[in-house]
């Protein structure tokens, strides 16, 4: 396996506050990596830094061997990254237009094909394809955000909590869809709290206070005390 994404001692923060402290991480081609960590551990910040939305204050980020640390988000996304943000959509644009933007670099025909697949998966979106995204419910927005990221067809997709706020019926569906995506050779880095996602992951990292506390395969994580503590609260009181 070759490394697609290499994160080397990355530091980042907001204003005077430093959030990430020398984060190391690797995502191999076709691999699905889960990013765990309690509230405020720095998961969102890491994903934003990787895609270039947050300036990298130290360290390096490499995509397929190329150093992309100095590139803007547009250049990184052109090189095959995609990012699903926690809450973002284009509120005054229609659902269809939002999806089209997800496949910003693709041809019209290709975008249409991918959009149909998305509508299949989320009939609620199909129903409202002409409505403004700003009128959607919280969960529908989430679906749109996810669909938008999947529209990109990127090699390396970052997802920030794709299942939060989704009804169980859709969580199951999302997992099934992601299995398909993974089968297609896409690499995923998913920050997620829903245990159900563990079944997708090859490996995972646990973040703690902006540092990588634990890393390992799914099995290793499942048996890690630190993960249990942070994640399931086992021994949290003790």
């Amino acid at each position, binding site marked *: 396996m070759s490394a697609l994404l290499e994160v080397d001692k990355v530091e980042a923060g907001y204003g005077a506050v430093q959030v990430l402290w020398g984060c190391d991480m690797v995502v191999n081609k076709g691999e699905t990596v889960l990013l765990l960590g309690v509230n405020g551990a720095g998961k969102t910040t890491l994903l934003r830094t990787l*895609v270039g*939305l947050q300036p990298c204050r130290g360290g390096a980020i490499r995509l397929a061997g190329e150093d992309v640390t100095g590139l*803007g*988000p*547009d*250049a*990184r*996304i*052109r090189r095959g*990254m*995609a*990012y699903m*943000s926690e809450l*973002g*959509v*284009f*509120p*005054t*644009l229609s659902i269809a*237009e939002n999806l*089209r*933007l*997800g496949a*910003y*670099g693709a041809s019209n025909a290709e975008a249409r094909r991918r959009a149909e697949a998305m509508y299949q998966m989320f009939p609620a979106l199909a129903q409202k394809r002409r409505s*403004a995204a*700003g*009128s959607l419910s919280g969960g529908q927005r989430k679906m749109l955000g996810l669909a*938008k990221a999947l529209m*990109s067809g990127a090699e390396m997709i970052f997802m920030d909590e794709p299942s939060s706020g989704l009804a169980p019926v859709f969580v199951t569906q999302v997992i099934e869809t992601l299995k398909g995506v993974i089968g297609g050779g896409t690499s995923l880095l998913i920050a997620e709290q829903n245990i159900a996602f563990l079944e997708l992951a090859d490996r995972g990292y646990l973040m703690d206070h902006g540092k990588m506390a634990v890393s390992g395969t799914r099995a290793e994580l499942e048996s890690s005390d630190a993960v249990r503590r942070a994640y399931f609260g086992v021994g949290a009181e003790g």
Partner: protein
Amino acid sequence: MQALLEYAIVGGVLYGIFFGLVAVGLNLIFGVMRIINLAHGEFVILGGFGAYWLSTSLGLNPLWGLPLAALGAVVIGFPLYYAVVPGLQRSRDPEMLSFILFFGLAQIIDAIISLGFGPDQRSLPDEALGGGTISVLGQAFPDSWWVAAGVAILAIMGLWLYLTRTRLGFATRAIMANRDEAFATGIAVDRVSAIAFVIGLALAGAAGVFVPYLQGSVAPGIGNNLTTTSFAILIIGSLGNPVGTLFGGLVFGVGSMLMQTFYASWSDLVPYVLLVVIVLLRPQGLFGKAVRNA
């Protein structure tokens, strides 16, 4: 009475279309970058002086002012954009900061025009745009009005096509809708915005070419008024939508001309009264989309 009414309506339509062009550049700059371009009117005037200079110094047809406006917008717009806008956007309240900055810019442009051309009014000969009249529904209007309206329609439709049919235009609308998400989607926000900025200036300059015709003359210092009227028009039509601005222009033009025909001294109330009434009825403008707040 009937004839007067028809004349006022046809005149108002032409005049309004022209004002749609005057305002549409502001719409783009305000809609995409959230820049309150208080210097908009000054850019319009620059276009007018450019056409005047071409016509008097080089003996060219003032319509060459249109490509000159585009060229000028590129030459002024890109450096200006990169010099000030990214800095603005990084600040805490870009919209409000732009207010001060572009106020200062308006002063500079006004001063430069005054120093370069003096305070005098400048007009252009009618013959350059035909010099005759064209009648529609039996109502004759000067050729220059038709040319201006024609160019305005082409420009606004062109902008509409740009925004709805091209990738860059699509990206532009995405930035208008949510700047952060546009970054996250991989749009080269700065480049797309810079292009929108330049197009906005070019449209302002292009409108300026016709100011000596539809306003009798161009002079430094008339920019304020154009800026204010443009803001009114674009809010009537709603932010971000060029067709809305065209519509806002029409509402303004026809309203003003009807008022001018029957109660001339109150005619400049029209755009403002319309604006207030329309936004109170539809707080997002005639063409705006509402989004939920909870």
